[in-house]
């Protein structure tokens, strides 16, 4: 269980996140949506320990993860918004380097790379130099890096940005497969594509989670309508009181 509790973050006196709380169960893919500047990327950076929150805690398996960051990062897979890989390496070299950096034992690395490549469907790219990859392929490689050690928590920032429709659909399948072993938190603006595979949407507005929309079993159109309404600020039925969204919907 991945739980975010009362996270607040202020940047240069401007509150970016205010008392953000939510829970993501293993196997669940939660999508954080919101307008530009709503704080989605900041939230993921805080969760990836790239920024220190003003207050709040992150709980993984009942323990405060931020108190033991190295242990937490071992359970974490992170795909940043801006994909920057080492262009002087091949895909295989890059994944090998990342696995070693994350502390994986040498004898297991080959298996880990094969598994990640299978999920991300980049087996044919292993010998390709990273500099020659398209944006979509690079994103898949970065995704493979994020899931390399089968993390308990997977944070995917702006996952579908810059991908064509086919690639977006593929990415949905990849995330669904990765969600088998991870609690997935993903951000993005491509609501139609996200609605196809996300279990739940959290609407982030002015630094607070203004709505939680359960997408399991709901028709994509209805989810889209609710999301549009939430993003425009029209109160939704069943929206959580205060600024809280739990994983009960997903559990159901």
């Amino acid at each position, binding site marked *: 269980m991945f739980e975010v509790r009362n996270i607040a*973050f202020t940047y240069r006196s401007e509150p970016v996140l205010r008392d953000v709380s939510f829970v993501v169960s293993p196997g669940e893919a939660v999508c954080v949506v919101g307008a530009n500047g709503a704080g989605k990327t900041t939230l993921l950076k805080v969760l990836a320990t790239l920024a220190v*929150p003003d207050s709040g805690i992150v709980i993984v398996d009942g323990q405060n993860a931020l108190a033991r960051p190295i242990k937490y990062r071992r359970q974490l897979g*992170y795909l*940043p918004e*801006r994909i920057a890989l080492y262009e*002087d390496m091949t895909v295989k070299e890059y994944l090998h380097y990342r696995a*070693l*950096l994350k502390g994986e034992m*040498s004898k297991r690395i080959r298996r880990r790379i094969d598994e990640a490549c299978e999920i991300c469907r980049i087996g044919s790219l292993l010998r390709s130099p990273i500099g*020659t990859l398209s944006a979509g392929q690079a994103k898949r490689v970065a995704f493979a890096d994020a899931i390399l050690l089968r993390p308990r928590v997977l944070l995917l920032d702006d996952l579908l940005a810059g991908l064509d429709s086919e690639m977006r659909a593929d990415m949905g399948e990849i995330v669904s497969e990765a969600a088998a072993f991870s609690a997935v938190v993903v951000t993005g603006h491509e609501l139609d594509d996200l609605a196809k595979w996300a279990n739940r949407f959290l609407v982030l507005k002015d630094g607070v989670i203004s709505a939680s929309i359960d997408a399991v079993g709901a028709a994509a159109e209805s989810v889209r309508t609710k999301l549009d309404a939430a993003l425009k600020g029209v109160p939704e039925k069943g929206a959580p009181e205060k600024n809280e969204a739990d994983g009960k919907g997903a559990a159901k």
Partner: protein
Amino acid sequence: MSPMRVTVSRTLGRMRSLYSSALAIAAFLSASAVAFSFGLEAAEGGSLSVAAVWAAAVSPFLPALAAFLAMDVWSDEKQSGRIELLLSAPVLERDLTLGKYLGVFVAIAASTLLSFAVTVAALRFAAPSALAGVGPLGFCPAFIALMLQGALWSAVSVAMSAMFRHAATAACASLLLLVGIPRGGWAALLAWAPQGRPQFGEMPLDAQVVDMASGLFSSGTIVSYLVLSAFFLFVASKFVAMLRFGGRGGRSWRMSTGVALVLAFLLSGLCVELSHRTDVKLDVPVGNTGKPFSARTRSILVEAQGDMTATCFLSRRDARFREVSRFLRALQAESASLGGLKIDISYIDPRWDIGRAEELIRLGASEDSIVFVKGRRRAFLPLSDGFGERVCASAILRLTMPPQRRNVYWSIGHGEISATDYGSWGMSDIARDLSREGYRNATIDLSGDASIPSDCALIVVAGAKDDFSRAETGRIDSYLKAGGRLLVLTSAAESGGVSSLLPSWGLRASAFQATGTRTVTGSDVIVGDFSEHAISKPLDGSRILLERPVAFMPSAAAEAGSGADRVEFSPLARAGTSVVAAAVERGVGTGADLSIRPTRIVAIGDASFAMNGQLMARASANRDFFLNCVAYLSGTDASVASGADSGALVTGFDRAGRLKFLLYTAGAVPLAVALVMLLVALRRRRRT
């Protein structure tokens, strides 16, 4: 594999794929080879080992290499955005920083090793004499010294890369910190206090390298380099960690990091200060010298029997105390091992031992001096006038010789080089050496009616431009006939000075034949071919330098005469087929009356032979040769200087050889290295 090792490997891999790394390393090799070549020229004939010359040549370029290799290790990660992936990995910032630092350090160590290999290989072919007795282990101290500096420069450069977002800014900041501030500050200090130049000595960064390369290790220096390296690594690690602390929540982290940095700074400063206060010097014999004292000093110690007291009149807190104390103890041990002079050492601290200090001051000692006492005779050596083996040996010699003054008269009035001129064109340095040896320097103008005083041990005619008048040469001739002694330094082949007088005494100056001679600048001549004469024999193995020399040959007078009138011409030093220094002696032939003092003349074919500028600029045995001449002429053979150590640096280079050496080490090899590295980088880039 630990994350640190992974980062080291990644850092090196990235350097291999960059053209700039290849060019930086090639430029480093080339620049240090040029500096080494010029350093060899300057050190020719001196006591500096070839390893020390190499270290001194490489050292100034290490900061630039470190700055270029390290400039993008962090800034590139930040600019490209890869920093997020690095910081989200389960690795401590400390390990990442250490990994990148070690990557840079390994690259610097490899470049230095390459420079060493190229230098040794080139010397082995081009100038094997320079490496005589110096095995690869002889270079170890030099390599350690460079690696200590390399460790610090790498740490500073990595810290700058962590601080700045742009690689160019980081490189500029590193260069400013490593080159601009220390060297600029030093230049400003010398400009501000030019009179302090002799006291300041060499720039500390350069001096430390030469000291260590020569085997003199200081615990304070080593600890300082290590502590400062650790401090800058700490700074780098904290700056990387601070990338996480952008928000308000990181405020307390930022503050605690700031406090940690200040504390680390203070702690480092404290460690450096303490290490210097409790400095321990370790003298490791390096190369072929092996012995701390020259043959001259040892011969003086052997010949000077009896007891002597050496008093170190210096505060124990003075920076020079350890060095002086160590020297005196070494001198004492050397003398004891040779069975010569028995030296007792005493220490008087002017601050604590007030009674004895007052007594010494009353006797004329200054508060920072060494006082040698033998019987009722004393010699005061103020440290501000320079301290070293030569000065102490001269003082001991002076105290052990019979107390008679030997007057050296320097001829004036014909455009001669002045013994009181402290500029580059004067001869004040050598005159001061003569004073230390117990001679009294005086001038004599023969143009008037003045006769040559009876207490004249010898006359020096140094580089007279104008001819001596007939009356003057007549006076000198009479003086010589009465067993006088004359030392002539001349660059004039046909006329000028006393050249008209010399043929009648068996010497004739002629044009110098440059066939088969070795030269560095084209106008100078390196001479190492010495004859078996009392003046030149002890110099065997060292080199003297002459600028535009003239040659000497025996005149008809040298062939004529017999018995006491026989003039013996002795070549002292040969350059190719030309004799550039010669001695003549009359009155020692078969049947000569032993009570008659023989006449002696020594001629050196270079007026600037012992000028201050010549003695300062180039390491050579010129000074010893001159002192030997004076000792021979004054008849104090016991004080004949024994020249440079047998460990003197001798390359045996001529101009063409030096040019070839330079082309090979500074041109061909760096070019080949650059090509290989560029090909590797190109291959990696093509693949990607």
